């Protein structure tokens, strides 16, 4: 019996690049930000944390009073804005990705356990999730930050702790429907233990959803981090964080020092928008692809 079997490739996670509508610009921006974050030491012209008071409030180079040495101007302590933005990218990226990873791991794990095992395990986890979700994220984060004190590590943990519930909810929903699929039934018939089924059959089939959710959560997490920093309970100074720069810069708005707020604000917008656009596109493209398989 003649059969045409080609390609040895699995349904590659990267096949989607060939799909239509691939959001090149958002991905380019995100990748660019990662590159900037990684190579911050090399790219930044000045030390972001040390400033010269004599040079404070210099405007960006295209305005009168600006210079090429401080391309995007200086802040109230004479620190180079461009360098702070570059290092701020690192902070945002690290905090953002780590927090999303943390929230994702915890949330996906609990979602799988809750969805697959059902019964009282499900009830307990879901009630905890419900209670958690009922708390407004930002307030909760501030509360936690006030307790444990602000530091970069703590912020990651706090953000992870606040946002894992979204994952748990979504992944649990997916698992509930996956559970009914015939290949899971067949795994039970084959004698696999519940643990093995969750790891070998359920997990690989929800990872794509977890990734999509991750890109969407990235934007949310970064905005929250910026808000925390803005309110003074985020990443502590003098470390440069975009939200912190916003907070510091707001005093200068009235006097016309617009670059102190607009520039970090734009960075936040760019990053969040790119993450959201990528996440949206992934959500539309990956899920129907999955169903076809």
């Amino acid at each position: 019996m003649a059969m045409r079997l080609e390609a040895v490739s699995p349904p590659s996670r990267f096949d989607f690049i060939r799909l239509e509508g691939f959001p090149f610009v958002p991905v380019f921006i995100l990748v660019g930000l990662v590159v900037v974050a990684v190579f911050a030491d090399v790219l930044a012209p000045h030390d972001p944390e040390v400033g010269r008071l004599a040079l404070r409030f210099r405007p960006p180079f295209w305005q009168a009073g600006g210079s090429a040495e401080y391309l995007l101007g200086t802040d109230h302590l004479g620190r180079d804005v461009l360098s702070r933005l570059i290092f701020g990218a690192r902070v945002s990226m690290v905090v953002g990705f780590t927090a999303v990873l943390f929230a994702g791991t915890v949330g996906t794990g609990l979602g799988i356990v809750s969805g697959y095992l059902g019964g009282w395990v499900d009830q307990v986890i879901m009630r905890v999730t419900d209670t958690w979700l009922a708390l407004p994220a930002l307030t909760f984060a501030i509360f936690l930050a006030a307790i444990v004190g602000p530091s970069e590590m703590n912020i990651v943990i706090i953000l992870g702790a606040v946002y894992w519930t979204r994952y748990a909810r979504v992944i649990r929903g997916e698992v509930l429907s996956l559970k009914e699929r015939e290949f899971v039934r067949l795994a039970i018939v084959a004698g696999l233990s519940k643990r093995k089924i969750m790891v070998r059959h359920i997990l690989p089939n929800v990872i794509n959803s977890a990734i999509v959710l991750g890109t969407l959560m990235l934007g949310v997490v970064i905005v929250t981090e910026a808000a925390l920093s803005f309110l003074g309970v985020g990443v502590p100074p003098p470390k440069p964080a975009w939200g912190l720069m916003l907070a510091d810069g707001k005093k200068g708005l009235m006097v016309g020092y617009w670059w102190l707020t607009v520039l970090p604000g734009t960075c936040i917008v760019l990053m969040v928008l790119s993450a959201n656009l990528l996440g949206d596109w992934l959500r539309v493209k990956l899920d129907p692809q999955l169903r076809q398989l």
Partner: protein
Amino acid sequence: MALLEAAGVSKHFQGRRGLFRDGGVVRAVDGVSFAIDGGQTLGVVGESGCGKTTTAKLVLGLEQPTGGGIQFEGRDLRALDSAGRRHYRKSVQAVFQDPYASLNPRMRVSAIIAEPLVTGETIAPVEVRQRVLHLLDLVGLPGRSADLFPHEFSGGQRQRIAIARALSSSPKLVVLDEPVSALDVSIRAQILNLLRDLQAQLGLSYLFIAHDLAAVAHMSHTIVVMYLGKVVESGDADTIVRAPRHPYTEALFSAALPSSPDDRRDEIVLSGEVPSPLRPPSGCHFHPRCPHAMARCKAHAPALMPVEGRLVACHLYGANGNSE
């Protein structure tokens, strides 16, 4: 001794209790008995709500009976210890209806096929590979299929992979739940032939469930006809197909459509709908639709009695004064 024997098996589900509903009990499977011998096929026919899918789940251990018992190789399933359960899992496998949902899209074919074999055992990878290649050959797929992923295959090919998987632990019984319904007509014969060949080659027993009566009749040695959770007729396939005795079986076979325009069977068209399993009719469940219903049928449920070489549950035959 039969390979698998079900004696008076029941599975009752508690209906949902709501503010305005009192729940009630769904008797999905109600006092069903049958036996499967080694190397034989038992076919189960019936329409929606008859309980054939639940029966399959009971045999596979995906559900536990609420009454009666199932014995495999003489041992009751509920009395099995963990070694016994493991043995059962190796001995009884399944092939389900949807070839697109039966295979984990993220696993290679070799892993999918080997799974029942390697679960709970340590077998050298070389041996596993050999077995997988042998199984692929048995089901008519080329050896290089082993390294591919399910999405590279068509529906009929996927069903072959599912069959190979079901055979990997050298089971004695395979539950086939609508194995060809989701396949194109021209592919069905391929798969049915394959199943028959495998049965002859490996001495397999099948529990064959399908709504395609002709396919069931073609494949089965014995047939069980179910209606709303109860067995209405059971016995040798030839006997039943040639001359069905229960009015429902007659209607079912008449509805099964002729294979040629000259095949003018008496068309029996039943009135009414298939009743809801939540509110089955009293007495004989079939009486509202039965063209031969008598007064007694409404009051008393008939028991299975031997009639002309098979078992029939119908007041039309023999002295049957049993009550519910």
